[in-house]
């Protein structure tokens, strides 16, 4: 079976610094894969290359059988890859519901004339956009639903912003969802809740997930497979336990001396 996403010997450098150096990575359909690694290992760069924000200097990214290198981020999203950002990026002056509705943008097509004439098909589409957006918000129970839908995103609590970002990504109806440190800055209880959310997302919505995560409890709790990066290369891959006990990984996190 071909993997859903395949990152094939991708390199990306900034000036003389190699953020990615011949990275190999694949994600199968229905998997939850965690990417771990120390700061500066190139984790977020992978996401930026996959989603088209950066053009790789070498290598290829194949999604669902077609190369997506050179596509614009919006086109990548349309093909079915959605993402969240490490430092939450919402549309602060839009409401929660509008944020989620923006996610539905690439699954709808009404243009100027539809908007002006309010044709039945536009109205139906708008209805569908709203329903899908509400559905995505509803994934987080009451946290983003009800009156919250009409609040501005800028007034949400930190944890809710993270949730909204995920809901917005889910509203794009992705096949693959990239989560960039989804639990960063959350308290232990919220972290646990989110860990369950990630699993539910795969189980209930059949979304394949690639997640960058620092919290090892979450990594252990959600991952089918863990990939460890350092200096833009894959240094270990396997189940959580295999990777957690891998010498290279320990070395990368703690430095050479710790092994000694």
């Amino acid at each position, binding site marked *: *079976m071909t993997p*859903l996403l395949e990152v094939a010997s991708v390199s990306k450098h900034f000036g003389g610094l190699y953020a990615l150096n011949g990275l190999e990575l694949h994600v199968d*359909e*229905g998997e939850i894969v965690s990417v771990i690694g120390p700061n500066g290992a190139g984790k977020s760069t992978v996401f*930026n290359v996959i989603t088209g*924000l*950066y053009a790789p200097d070498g290598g290829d990214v194949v*999604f*669902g*059988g*077609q190369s997506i290198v*050179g*596509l614009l981020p919006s*086109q990548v999203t*349309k*093909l*079915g890859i959605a993402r969240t950002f490490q430092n939450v990026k919402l549309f602060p002056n839009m409401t929660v519901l509008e944020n989620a509705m923006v996610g539905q943008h690439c699954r709808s097509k009404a243009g100027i004339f539809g908007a002006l004439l309010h044709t039945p098909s536009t109205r139906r589409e708008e209805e569908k956009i709203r329903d899908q957006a509400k559905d995505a918000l509803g994934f987080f129970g009451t946290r983003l639903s009800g009156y919250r839908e009409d609040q501005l995103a800028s007034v949400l609590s930190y944890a809710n912003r993270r949730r909204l970002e995920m809901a917005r990504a889910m509203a794009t109806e992705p*096949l693959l969802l990239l989560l960039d440190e989804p639990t960063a800055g959350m308290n232990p209880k919220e972290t646990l809740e989110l860990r369950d959310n990630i699993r539910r997302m795969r189980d209930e919505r*059949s979304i394949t997930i690639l997640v960058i995560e620092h919290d090892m409890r979450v990594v252990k709790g959600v991952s089918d497979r863990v990939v460890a990066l350092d200096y833009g290369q894959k240094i270990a891959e396997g189940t959580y336990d295999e990777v957690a006990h891998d010498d290279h990984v320990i070395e990368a996190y703690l430095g050479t001396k710790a092994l000694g």
Partner: protein
Amino acid sequence: MANGALSATTSARSLGLLERLPVRRIVLIVLTVAVVTFVAVGTFKTLTLSGVDHLGWTFWANLLVIGLALGAVYALIALGYTLVYGILRMINFAHGEVFMAGAFGSYFFAAAYSRSGFLNNQPWAALAILFVVGIAISTGVAVLLERIAYRPLRNAARLVPLITAIGASLFLQNTAQGFFGSQTRGYPRPSLLDGTITWFGVSFDKIDPIVIVTSIVVMVALEVFVKRTKTGKSMRAVAEDREIASLMGIDVDRVIVTTFVIGGMLAGIAGVLYALTFGQVGATMGFLPGIAAFTAAVLGGIGSIPGAAIGGFILGVSESVGPYLLLTGFNVPSPFELRGVVTFSILVLVLIFRPGGILGAGGAEKV
């Protein structure tokens, strides 16, 4: 997992051929071809134009000198934009009015000295006073502008200070009109600077080389100041990272005020030079040189002092030589009318193709 169903969805989601079209790249390529063709054909046709004797080499040399003098003034104003942009990341749209204030303010002294004869009896002393007055007034306006209009907006969204600056530009222009009247006034020039000189068969106004030399001296002094003095180093630190600089014990407010002071001083010098060259001042005189100087700053690489100097000279020369060189060949009547188009076209092209400018690195937004 329903793998088959998922794969089916994946393949169903593909982009149409039209969507794969790299629109931006195509626009850029078309634009490049158009511009290069236009410049090449225009230049070729103009230079091969036969039977027009006024287009001899002295004609071009003369335009070149005029362009360099204009460029020297642009460079001085451009430095004000560049310094402020480097430190605050904002376009001080009202800087053209700072320039105008210095020129207009010194006018009243120049006019009085002209009436009393002081201007021609003691030209050097009179000129010194005119420069001091121009510098003082421009600096004052620049500092007030910073204090009243810009400082409260230090942390506002990016477009807010820009809109404020546009407002300030309009406000200052019309204040000058209210204070001093809307007619342009003739700026007296000491007879010492009147007349033309002829070098190698090329004759030009005596004032032109003076303007060029003065501005180069000022720019070298500024470069030394920024590179060598403690204040200059603080300025560079704040430009690099305002927050870290303040943690290092640098008084950021003070550095910003200093920046406006220096920008104002340079604008004052430029104002007096401009008034002496063109012989007139008016409330709206700041707008076009302001835009041109901003273009020069962008052209050279905004944030860079040598960049502003180079950009200024290039722009001045393009403005004076460009319309004739490119358009005469196409039989465009009065090409000089279209010099604004040349300025703006250069600005647009630089921003599209090399947003960092000739010497700069920034410009395009970081991810």
